[in-house]
């Protein structure tokens, strides 16, 4: 089983805790790296700023990306990831509370792999996280794993 980290880009500490809780409840054991805004997420992915010196050959197994973020929005982060060879194929799941049609269309156009609306009900959250985790960490062979 792949044990590379999951990158969670989320500014709301409640949602961070709930997501971690839901992942744990779904028996997903990959370490979770949390970025509080878009800039921090890019720093982690490209080994810059506060993450300078990180081994960027180790890319996360999946990025759970909120849309509404301080500094750089999730859509901006997604665009930058898809422009860079190192992260072009990293799976990205848009994890957001919005179900605005425009957002969904935009993120798919930019190359998001999936779009999940965070349900209010915690059980729904857990089951969504479980499906996500299973899919991206177990069933889906990420592009980097072949090396």
């Amino acid at each position, binding site marked *: 089983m792949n044990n590379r980290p999951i990158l969670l880009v989320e500014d*709301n500490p*409640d*949602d961070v*805790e*709930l997501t971690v*809780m839901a992942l744990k409840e779904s028996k997903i054991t990959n370490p979770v790296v949390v970025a509080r805004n878009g800039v921090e997420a890019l720093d982690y992915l490209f080994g810059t700023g506060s993450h300078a010196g990180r081994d960027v050959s180790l890319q996360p197994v999946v990025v759970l990306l909120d*849309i*509404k973020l301080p500094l750089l929005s999730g859509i901006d982060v997604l665009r930058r990831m898809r422009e860079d060879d190192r992260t072009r194929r990293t799976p990205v799941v848009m994890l*957001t*509370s*919005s*179900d*605005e049609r425009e957002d969904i269309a935009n993120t798919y156009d930019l190359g998001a792999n999936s779009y999940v609306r*965070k*349900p*209010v*009900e*915690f*059980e729904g*959250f857990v089951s969504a996280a479980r499906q996500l985790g299973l899919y991206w960490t177990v069933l889906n062979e990420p592009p980097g794993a072949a090396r």
Partner: protein
Amino acid sequence: MPLRRLTIRQKLTGIAMLSSFTALVSASIAFLAYDLHSIRQSLARRILTDAQIVGFNSISPLVFNDAETAAATLNGLRAEPAIVAAIIRAQDSAAPFATYFRDGPPVPHPAFPAPAVLGPVFAADHLLVSEPIRFEGRPIGTLVIQADLAEIRNRQRRYAGIVVAVLAGSFVLALGISRLMEQSISRPIVRLADTARAVSAQKDYSVRAHGAGRDEVGLLIGTFNQMLDQIQRQDSDLKEAHADLERRVETRTRDLAAANKELEAFSYSVSHDLRAPLRAIDGFSKAVLTDYAPRLDDRGRHYLERVRAGTLRMSQLIDDLLGLARVSRRELVRKRADLSDIAGQVAAELRRRQPARKVQVKVQPGLVAEADPHLLAIVFENLMGNAWKFTGKREDARIEVGRQADGGAPAFYVRDNGAGFDMQYADKLFGAFQRLHAEADFEGTGIGLATVQRIVARHGGRIWAEGRVDEGATFYFTLERNP
């Protein structure tokens, strides 16, 4: 060329020419006629005088039967060139006593007609004068003189030449004069017509016609200019009003766009930010329920469950409100919508969600409308969802979807035999958050019918409802573009 196709200048010239020509011709004819008459009279008088003199001088030759002297006397008539022939007859004798011929005796000898009357008689080409010759009161013979009319004809010819020359001269003169005169009338009229044409072609109401005299044309020009004043004033008023309207529309459009943008930002932020705390409330309540289960008694658990239920309800409210806002913002795309198909799909979805319910759903086939199919799906989801919900307490639940065509525009309807409502509150049905039933009896946020009404209104249609408590409700709606 018909008269009305002539220009005013041509007409004026024509009138002047025609009247001067008519006057001149009638004057000439009158003068000619008078002259002809007087010249004939003077010729007749002259020949008569000659006849009287010769007749007197012929008395003694006749009495003494001296034909030679008579002929010599007649020969004296040579002094009058008009006289062609003269003859003396003795009384009661057919043969002539003496003759005279200006151009020699004709062959054969002309038969002098004996005029029926004495005195001068005009024929077509000659004049005959008969003079009785008397001696001591007794007629002893007759003298007949024939004169030709060459003199009169020559004179007539000369006169005709003069008349033609005078006519031609005066025609040219009249033409010149009338040209000068008609310009004073036609020039202002032509200028007025040019001005009117320019105004009409260029829509320039600032030009004015010039040259106002005191005559009728001057009056016409003055009135025309006044009319232009009024038109110019009205035109500028109209342009001003139009520009004002345009400005207002622009302002309103800008305001509307700003309001729309604000609404969009608002609903975006609602859908993101309002949901996050709800997730926290529900998620951590759930965490307390599971992680601290041993320390919670039944009441504690009940309270936490109520917190979670409230959270879910709030989440549903937010979703419904966003749906209502989205319905208003979404662009309306009209196409041929198969309403029977849409209603059928909604019914199937309702059965899928609650397979245990026994509900008889009847959808009239062939219901079509020019409408937005996506928005119409929301209409049927709400109306049929309501019907499904409010028949929940009946064993023989029935939902009917159809079209009613009697009188006026066709109205689509969704009918059920559920809880119904009191018609007294019918006007409250379509307001947001208005509910006619207790939450405990039938759940709901009270936003569905407001959403339906918004969709129907956006199609230009109308929605209304009929119902009776415990007997069911029918919701009608139309979708015309121009009701």
